């Protein structure tokens, strides 16, 4: 296990480095100069040179990368080209919206899908079992922002129960206000996420229910519920945990999209604005944090999977 942890951590580190280089290189090598963000169409050559010097684009790409990387190691993400404000506090402020949104949506999706997936598998021949399977099949084809649009039109514009967009100006100063703003976004993301999760839970449950070990346990006189609880849970959890990592990362990105439906000041809207303004430090900062989140989640899921399934611990290969 220690060996595995070391290898997996090394992999995490290397993949993160590769991702950072890729982000930097893609942004610099593709057409478009970072200094364009500061200039009007009619800029004089002197203005262009000054802008390039200001953002450091006049130096060789490799040198720019080293500067950026040195900053990163000090957890300094630089300053915005546009507002000259440091990137890191801005990201931290926006994580206060995106992280609660992601976690609440994920928790809700998990509850929905565990119940729905289990029912759909165990009651596969009942009408409601079939209905759940059908809805989850439909759900994976639905774009998340569309669900958001529909929910807003019904619950905010139509019934006026909840705010349609925005977030309290004073953030979490009044938690109930903040939660009200997050309710519809959370439900939106959770509904869409639970569709695919339900399918995984259903198929894992079907595997467990049809398994030989469960039949053996039953034959030895164990009750159905007891057999499911003692043998089924641990076996069924293995494939689910590895999926959960991917799904949590997807939830995070779903949140990024849904933020623009509901006008939430989260990481997603920051990225979109930065892309629009060619604000490279902000783009890099958001992608740095998102990549880190996604990779760490993957790491945690892999380790958790090993802890649950002793069979996997024997294999030492770094990439499964």
């Amino acid at each position: 296990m220690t060996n595995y942890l070391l290898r997996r951590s090394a992999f995490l580190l290397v993949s993160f480095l590769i991702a950072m280089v890729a982000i930097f290189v893609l942004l610099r090598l593709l057409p478009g100069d970072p200094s364009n963000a500061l200039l009007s169409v009619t800029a004089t050559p002197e203005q262009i040179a000054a802008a390039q010097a200001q953002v450091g684009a006049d130096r060789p790409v490799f040198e720019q990368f080293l500067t950026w990387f040195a900053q990163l190691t000090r957890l300094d993400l630089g300053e915005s080209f546009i507002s000259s404000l440091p990137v890191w506090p801005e990201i931290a402020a926006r994580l206060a919206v995106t992280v609660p949104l992601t976690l609440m949506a994920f928790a809700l999706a998990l509850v929905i899908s565990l119940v729905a997936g289990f029912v759909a598998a165990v009651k596969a021949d009942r009408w409601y079992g079939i209905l759940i399977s059908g809805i989850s099949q439909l759900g994976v084809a639905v774009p998340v922002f569309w669900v958001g649009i529909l929910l807003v039109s019904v619950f905010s514009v139509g019934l006026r129960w909840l705010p349609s967009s925005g977030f309290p100006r004073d953030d979490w100063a009044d938690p109930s206000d903040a939660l009200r703003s997050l309710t519809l976004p959370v439900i939106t993301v959770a509904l869409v996420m639970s569709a695919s999760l339900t399918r995984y839970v259903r198929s894992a449950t079907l595997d467990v229910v049809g398994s030989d070990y469960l039949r053996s346990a039953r034959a030895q006189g164990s009750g159905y519920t007891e057999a499911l609880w003692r043998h089924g849970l641990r076996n069924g959890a293995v494939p689910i945990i590895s999926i959960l990592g991917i799904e949590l990362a997807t939830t995070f990105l779903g949140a990024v999209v849904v933020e623009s439906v509901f006008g939430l000041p989260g990481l997603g809207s920051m990225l979109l604005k930065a892309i629009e303004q060619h604000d490279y430090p902000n783009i890099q900062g958001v992608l740095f944090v998102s990549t880190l989140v996604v990779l760490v989640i993957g790491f945690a899921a892999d380790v958790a999977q090993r802890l649950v399934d002793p069979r996997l611990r024997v294999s030492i290969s770094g990439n499964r």
Partner: protein
Amino acid sequence: MSAVLIASTDVARARRHRSWTLLSGLVLVGTVVLVALISLVWLPYAPADTTGTRLEAPSGTHWLGTDKLGRDLATQLMIGARIALVVGLGSVVIGAILGITIGLTAAFAASWLDDTISAALDVVIAFPVLLLAMLIVAAQGASLGSVIVAIGLAMSAVVARLTRVLTKRVLGEQFVTAARTSGTRWPGIVVRHILPNIWPTLSVNLALQFGVAVLAEASLSYLGLGAPPPNASWGRLLQEAQGTVITAPVGAIAPGIALIMLVIGVNFIADGLRDVADPARKGSR
């Protein structure tokens, strides 16, 4: 599921279920393809023309009504079908060519190269399609081409990993050893033994990826990172109709339904193909 009798009726039911999914998938996707083909030769109106008053309700002259600029919605929706299919096909072609090449290379390569490629693929896969697409669009500017390239690149990693695993499995088969012993060269083995054997599973995955690509394009367009205006992508139609969802609900509903039809259609086809690819797979799991 202990009795043989039960098992065999299960299989029969599963098979009937499969042919039903394949058929409905073909109908759904076929409808969208048909609409897209018709849009190439005939449209109700010129897409950019204001042909009615703002936000008209559906009528004989405007089947789905008009948008907030008075343009015909049915026309926009038909063009959207074309864009969705072009993005889906384009990115699947890019993803398949790149992915299969990389996957085959990794499977045949020396172990250090295989490990390196696999690790690199894991990094790209950990980086979700949408984020990668945003990055490429951020650097290159929003255009239909950037979107297709971005989604195709992200997809290629998934395809490459699958190709590598499938190829390794086939390489371990005795018929490959037999072919090698009888003097078949590697290119011959790839064309005659590996590709035909991995294609069934691969094509199911590619069909699913098509749906993922269509959804990713819709999200990008919705966020304003997709193909710029004259291209009426379904995602952008939804974004434009969002503000008027109560006064003109059709505009916000029709593109969504079109999207779902296409994506669920390809998912159904993938499900149906899976049965052809792997008849031993039982039940509708």
